[in-house]
């Protein structure tokens, strides 16, 4: 019962990831692509959790936190690049 539910949830997550990849390819502006990539990272977290249930091991649960942190840092860097043109500013007095 719970096995079928988890497989079904994996199929749903895979379909949603395909839709987000469609938005990454087609999206008219850069912000669309960044939003879709951020959502792909969040979906990857869900798929990692489900795969660790399927494989019945808790060795992959650190990866969840890691992917979350990396997706957040990447999105913040992209947002700062879109807004200011640089990610790490050099001049100190302004």
């Amino acid at each position, binding site marked *: 019962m719970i096995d079928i539910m988890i497989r079904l949830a994996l199929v749903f997550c895979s379909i949603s990831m395909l839709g987000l990849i469609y938005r990454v390819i087609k999206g008219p502006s850069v*912000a669309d692509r960044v939003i879709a990539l951020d*959502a792909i990272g969040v*979906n990857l977290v*869900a798929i990692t959790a489900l795969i660790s249930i399927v494989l019945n091991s808790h060795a992959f649960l650190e990866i969840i936190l890691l992917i979350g942190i990396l997706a*957040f840092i990447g999105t913040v860097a992209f947002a700062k690049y879109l807004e200011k043109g640089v990610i790490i500013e050099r001049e100190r007095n302004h």
Partner: protein
Amino acid sequence: MLSIWKRGLLSNVSVIIDFFIGFFILVGSLFCLIATIGVIRLPDVYTRNHAASKAATLGVMSILLGTFLYFYALEGHFNSRLILGIVFLFMTSPISGHLINRAAYNSGVKLWDKSVRDDLKEYNKKVLEKSSVD
């Protein structure tokens, strides 16, 4: 409590826990799917961000809660990293949505042509006039 579950003395409780795990995981994956449908079908960047940053966050938090329940109740393994992951996603996902939305507005992405009001534009114009008067 866990040892009682393992000995099978409370098998009804195990059925209820199974139901909750399946419920959380299925509802979370359906939320992810609905967020993706929103990202594909909505008309401009801001509405797409609205769909992605709320529904996907709630869905993934629900899936992580189901995973935590699975490992805690059926395996007897309390995993604190999953709780940390839930808290981290809940804190950071709206922030990244806000940052991307602000970057899109400031880099000049147009709103949907049927949207009715843009308060930030008037506010920016007012601030610009005041600074030019000063």
